[in-house]
């Protein structure tokens, strides 16, 4: 096809025209092969400027347009829309950047003018080889998967379900609720965690748009944005939940006691159990690892007492497959283990507890019914030390980051302890107090002023046991003196880490984690709830340590991103993707290892191995193209020929 390119040179007021001699440019470009029209205007992006381009496309029957003006970052879309309005494919329009890259950065008028001409010629050469493209469109399965049934997953699932879309919620333990269900009262309002959480848990269970798979894990994920296929492993619970009414007789009669995970090891549970009384769904599971029958082959007491015949020792893991269009990852956190901190006894001292254990001691439904009794002897501690930044902000030995919630929950712990033990003495050791949420600073002030919590600025260097008491060695860095403090109980504000198993999950989802194992967002400022993989969103502590309000906000943000997707008829994708000349492809597979998006795969076509492109996954980076040893792989509208022609044009003298 004979090319008929139109070049439109913008003065940008005097921004271009004062350094680049526009008339000279237009004269030079008019003569250039393939160019049938060149024209200038003061403000090409203005309405008359745009009108001029539209008119010329029709009058001159142009096959391509070059707008020589500012950076394409600014106006590429504008001029492509203008081109489209005239019936010319928008991908046949390109911008030549003669402002930022020429008139603004150079002073010499003659040199700048020559350079502007060269830049325009380079882009004319590109446009000559530009194909007509249409954005790719893909259908969307308007159903979402939410992984993790903590407060982040619950919020996200409810938001999406309330908007009228189906949600599959997968939770690895037998009840939803997550860590929030373990908390006593929440800062800064001291409302009871259960009171605000359990209604939401019930809402999830009863929601007509939510399908809950509890005691389940993600086994495999395939597909891509809008069209994921998810294989879910339903772990054997050995209880037929359709028959079980949750009477609890089996639990009562079970002879095996093990440490309860929900009570953070401070109380026992049975081998057949529901994690906590308010569990949703409230159905028991058998812990195969500890069950006497599974260990010894004898017992089956639960089976004998169950009138409903709900115990099924022969049950096996089951699998279901679901198709979803979007995935929200809300896998939460776990607390960094006390055993990692040698100088604080590494878990040897019963009365050195972590924050979640203290939550259980404070909880009205906890092992002590809300009375503060220390684990070793059940005595009420008269002096309690709270230590912040344990494992956090310690790049040499532990975690480099701030765990964000410890300052606040330790203030809350000290306050609630004082409420329960009015003559008790709470002492907080801190490095800095970080109280940057709404009402948080006031809360810390209240702990100090009304509840007389003592704050000592200093890191605790050692904790050891002496005569049934704990001894803390520290320093008061404000008074400049060493401190040796004897107390009855120590609460450690441990670092927060990503949940175990997230690594494996991220590999299945093909999303990234940072150096600390937290999920990586697509952009730290502008895309904070998207992963780099289209269609996969992140929420809650899986992303970084955060408190409940931030978690809920982020979960709703992730949902709104899902809903933004579901609000479209189909997904549109940039067509500047990689493509393969199948005659040249040898099927070596180099491209597959180079693609960060899993967009390349080997297929057998007519007995020949071909590395194909899953266009919808391709982000158009071009890594695979540069790596293809056969030159079989090319990029739409930036193929090798185009780049080589552009380079030649840059190098041509004159």
């Amino acid at each position, binding site marked *: 096809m004979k090319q008929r390119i139109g070049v439109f040179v913008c003065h940008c007021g005097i921004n271009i025209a004062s350094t680049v001699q526009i008339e000279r440019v237009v004269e030079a470009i008019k003569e250039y092969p393939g160019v049938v029209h060149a024209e200038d205007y003061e403000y090409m992006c203005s309405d008359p400027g745009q009108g001029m381009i539209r008119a010329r496309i029709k009058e001159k029957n142009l096959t391509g347009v070059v707008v020589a003006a500012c*950076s*394409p*970052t600014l106006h590429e879309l504008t001029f492509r829309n203008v081109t489209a309005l005239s019936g010319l494919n928008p991908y046949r329009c390109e911008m030549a*950047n003669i*402002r*930022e*890259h*020429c*008139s*603004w*950065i*150079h*002073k*010499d008028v003659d*040199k*700048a003018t020559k*350079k502007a001409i*060269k*830049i325009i010629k*380079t882009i004319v050469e590109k446009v000559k080889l530009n194909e007509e493209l249409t954005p790719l469109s893909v259908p969307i399965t308007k159903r979402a998967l939410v992984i993790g049934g903590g407060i982040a997953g619950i919020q996200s699932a409810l938001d999406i379900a309330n908007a009228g879309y189906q949600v599959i919620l997968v939770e690895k333990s037998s009840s939803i609720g997550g860590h929030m269900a373990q908390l006593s009262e929440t800062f800064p309002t001291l409302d009871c965690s259960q009171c605000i959480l359990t209604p939401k848990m019930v809402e999830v269970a009863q929601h007509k748009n939510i399908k809950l798979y509890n005691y389940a894990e993600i086994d495999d994920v395939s597909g891509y944005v809008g069209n994921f296929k998810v294989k879910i492993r339903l772990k054997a619970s050995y209880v037929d939940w359709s028959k079980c009414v949750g009477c609890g007789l089996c639990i009562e009669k079970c002879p095996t006691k093990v440490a309860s995970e929900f009570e953070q090891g401070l109380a026992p549970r049975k081998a057949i159990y529901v994690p906590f009384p308010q569990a949703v769904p409230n159905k028991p599971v058998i812990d195969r690892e500890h069950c006497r029958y599974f260990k010894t082959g004898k017992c089956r007491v639960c089976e004998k007492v169950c009138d409903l015949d709900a115990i099924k020792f022969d049950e096996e893991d089951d699998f279901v497959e679901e198709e979803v269009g979007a995935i929200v990852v809300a896998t939460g956190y776990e607390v960094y283990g006390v055993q990692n901190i040698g100088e604080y006894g590494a878990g040897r001292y019963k009365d050195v507890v972590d924050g979640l254990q203290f939550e259980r001691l404070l909880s009205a439904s906890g092992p002590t019914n809300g009375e503060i009794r220390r684990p070793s002897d059940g005595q009420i501690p008269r002096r309690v030390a709270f230590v912040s930044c344990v494992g956090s902000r310690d790049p040499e030995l532990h975690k480099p980051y701030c765990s964000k919630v410890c300052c606040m929950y330790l203030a809350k712990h000290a306050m609630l302890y004082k409420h329960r033990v009015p003559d008790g003495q709470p002492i907080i050791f801190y490095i800095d107090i970080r109280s940057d949420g709404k009402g948080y600073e006031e809360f810390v002030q209240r702990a100090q002023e009304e509840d007389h919590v003592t704050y000592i600025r200093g890191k605790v260097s050692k904790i050891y046991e002496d005569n049934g008491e704990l001894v803390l060695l520290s320093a008061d860095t404000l008074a400049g003196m060493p401190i040796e403090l004897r107390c009855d109980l120590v609460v450690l504000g441990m670092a927060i880490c990503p949940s175990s198993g997230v690594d494996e999950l991220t590999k299945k989802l093909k999303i*990234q984690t940072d150096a600390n194992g937290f999920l990586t967002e697509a952009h730290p400022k502008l895309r904070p709830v998207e992963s*780099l993989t289209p269609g996969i969103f992140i929420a809650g502590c899986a992303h970084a340590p955060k408190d409940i309000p931030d978690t809920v906000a982020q979960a709703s943000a992730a949902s709104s991103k899902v809903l933004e997707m579901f609000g479209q008829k189909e997904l549109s994708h940039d067509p*500047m993707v990689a493509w393969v000349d199948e005659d040249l492809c040898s099927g070596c597979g180099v491209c597959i290892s*180079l693609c*960060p*998006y899993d967009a390349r795969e080997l297929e057998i076509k007519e007995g020949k191995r071909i590395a194909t492109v899953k266009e919808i996954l391709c*982000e*158009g*980076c*071009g*890594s695979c*193209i*540069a*790596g293809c040893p056969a030159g079989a792989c090319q*990029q739409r509208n*930036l193929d*090798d020929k185009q*780049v*080589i022609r*552009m*380079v*030649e044009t*840059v*190098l041509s*003298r004159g």
Partner: protein
Amino acid sequence: MQDFEPNVVVFCCRWCSYAAADLAGTSRMTANPQFVVIRTMCSGRIDPEFILDAFAKGADGVLVTGCHPGDCHYVNGNYKTRRRMLLLEEVLEQFGIDRKRLRCEWISASEGGKFVKTIDEFIGTIKKLGPIDGIK
């Protein structure tokens, strides 16, 4: 040699270094004009053959720029670029091309100043080297 005006090709990735070049202009910095920018989506798109081809056709210097390591918009494209450019440098001398004629630099979108400094330094180096004498 005094009036030698080198011909330099600069590859910029769309997200970081192209934006840095834009910023240099927006901030009205001044750079030597003996170069033209070719925009790719990612520095990872730059086939070493483009560079050899450019030298064969008379480029006095080629500058490859991209996002800083770890900042790539496409996860890790610039690491691939770095590998390719290191290998290419080894090959250049076999073609009788001074390896100083190829430079690879990481320039973030906020580093307009670094863009200009890199251009001026690089063109300065090329001026000292003189015009390219073809591939041997």
